[in-house]
């Protein structure tokens, strides 16, 4: 009996720490470090409100998978079923959750400001340059093409897009890229303003833009259909993400599918967000996450955001010139997406120079265009490398 008790003690997680495959300084098990990292992420998500709806599940998944012998990610073995998160993870691995979450995003998004001002699309395109420059930079730093593409997409500022691309190109990077993407999306009000001020003159920032025209219901209904067909024909690999986004938006706009729109953006989206977050977090096993690459990814993600912001603002300056001073270049930074945070940043920065200036709706155009833009950029990456 005492031997049995001893064996039982051997089976605790404390004992398992001793057999950890990754001993830091020869003493600290990697899993313990990961538990601390998970707690920090929980702190950022809960106390600092960094995208809590994603960071809390991601951090908790990270916590669960690093409790030694917990087996939540264990693959099935013969007749023994796998762990809970192993099964939830299949929806990430097979590329099911991100498009369905995008459907919910579509059901939440009003493309009206974009339809009212189609030139916004150019700003949404410009801000994706950060994706490709970061892709270049990452290859220069030694990442292979697939990893570099996954890293670049962080600059698209869309969690589901980044996770979808990474799940297709290099699943090992999932936790680092998801954490970087969601953290920087939360940090947009910190990252963007200095860049915006550096690149614009006071005069430019004070531009008051004309009011947007009304958009008819017909246009709003046609928009998702036209985008799906046009972009789907141009770039077939963007169909899963863009098609789902536009289907959700169609549910929203028809006026006769309110039930479907409601469920897409509530019950279904919340269920998938929990499953996605926990299972992405659970890919962060110590020996995979505690790599120098993780830091590089986090640094490159910041670069991607900064370059995206800058190229959006610079393109805004071009439009300021070509329009004869009618476009406020501050709305360019909203092109990175991070809806609607980036648009609010444009609003706040603009209002500081000119308290009566309301740029929010003008910035929503590039903002939602950035969602389409990064989905297309994702399609390009998948088309070349998928």
């Amino acid at each position, binding site marked *: 009996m005492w031997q049995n008790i001893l064996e039982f003690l051997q089976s605790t997680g404390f004992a398992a720490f001793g057999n950890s495959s990754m001993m830091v300084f020869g003493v600290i098990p990697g899993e313990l470090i990961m538990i601390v990292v998970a707690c920090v992420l929980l702190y950022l998500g809960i106390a600092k409100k960094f995208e809590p709806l994603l960071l809390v599940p991601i951090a908790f998944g990270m916590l669960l998978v690093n409790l030694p012998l917990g087996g939540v990610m264990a693959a099935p073995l013969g007749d023994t079923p796998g762990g809970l998160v192993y099964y939830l993870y299949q929806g990430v691995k097979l590329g099911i959750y991100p498009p369905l979450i995008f459907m919910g995003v579509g059901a939440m998004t009003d493309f009206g400001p*974009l*339809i009212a001002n*189609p*030139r916004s*699309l*150019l700003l*949404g*395109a410009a801000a*994706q*340059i950060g*994706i*490709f*420059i970061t*892709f*270049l930079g990452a*290859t220069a730093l030694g990442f292979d*093409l697939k990893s*570099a*593409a996954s890293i670049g997409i962080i600059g698209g500022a869309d969690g589901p897009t980044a996770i979808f691309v990474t799940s297709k190109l290099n699943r090992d990077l999932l936790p680092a890229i998801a954490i970087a993407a969601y953290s920087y999306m939360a940090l947009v009000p910190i990252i963007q303003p200095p860049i915006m001020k550096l690149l614009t003159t006071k005069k430019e920032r004070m531009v008051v833009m004309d009011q947007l*025209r*009304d958009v*008819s*219901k*017909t*246009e709003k*209904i*046609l*928009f998702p259909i*036209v*985008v799906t067909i*046009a*972009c789907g024909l*141009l*770039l077939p690999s963007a169909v899963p993400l863009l098609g789902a986004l536009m289907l959700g938006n169609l549910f929203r706009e*028809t*006026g*006769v*599918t*309110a*039930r479907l729109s409601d469920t897409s953006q509530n019950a279904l989206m919340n269920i998938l967000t929990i499953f996605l977050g926990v299972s992405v977090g659970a890919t962060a096993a110590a020996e995979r996450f505690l790599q120098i690459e993780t830091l590089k990814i986090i640094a490159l993600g910041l670069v991607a955001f900064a370059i995206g912001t800058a190229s959006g603002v610079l393109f805004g300056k071009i439009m300021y010139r070509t329009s004869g001073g009618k476009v406020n270049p501050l709305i360019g930074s909203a092109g990175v997406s991070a809806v609607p945070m980036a648009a609010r940043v444009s609003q706040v920065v603009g209002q500081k120079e000119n308290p009566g200036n309301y740029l929010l709706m003008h910035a929503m155009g590039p903002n939602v*265009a950035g969602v*389409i*833009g990064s989905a*297309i*950029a994702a*399609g*390009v*990456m998948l088309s*070349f*490398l998928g």
Partner: protein
Amino acid sequence: MDVWTITIVGVGTVFLALVGLSLMLGMFKRLFHGRKDSAPSAATAEAPRPAPARAADGTLVAVISAAIAAATGGQPGSFRVVSVQASGGFSTPVWGHIDRLTRTGSGR
């Protein structure tokens, strides 16, 4: 695959797609702006409206006929479907399967 190719084609495609969309949306403005909305608002869905389905009764058959006729090399007329006559006077809108159930007393 060359990293520069991907970058150039990538940036190019993003701009091409979004500029293309931008041009299409420019046409939207010409086509639809100022026009009154044809689709009635959801708020009035409960109110009686004159036979919304009447005009569309033959559309489905006609379009699918034409499509298949073309696809199979025949003529639209070779498989004739007698047009459904509208009965007129219905003030009941055409609900979805689910909506219909919901809106009777049977839905909670």
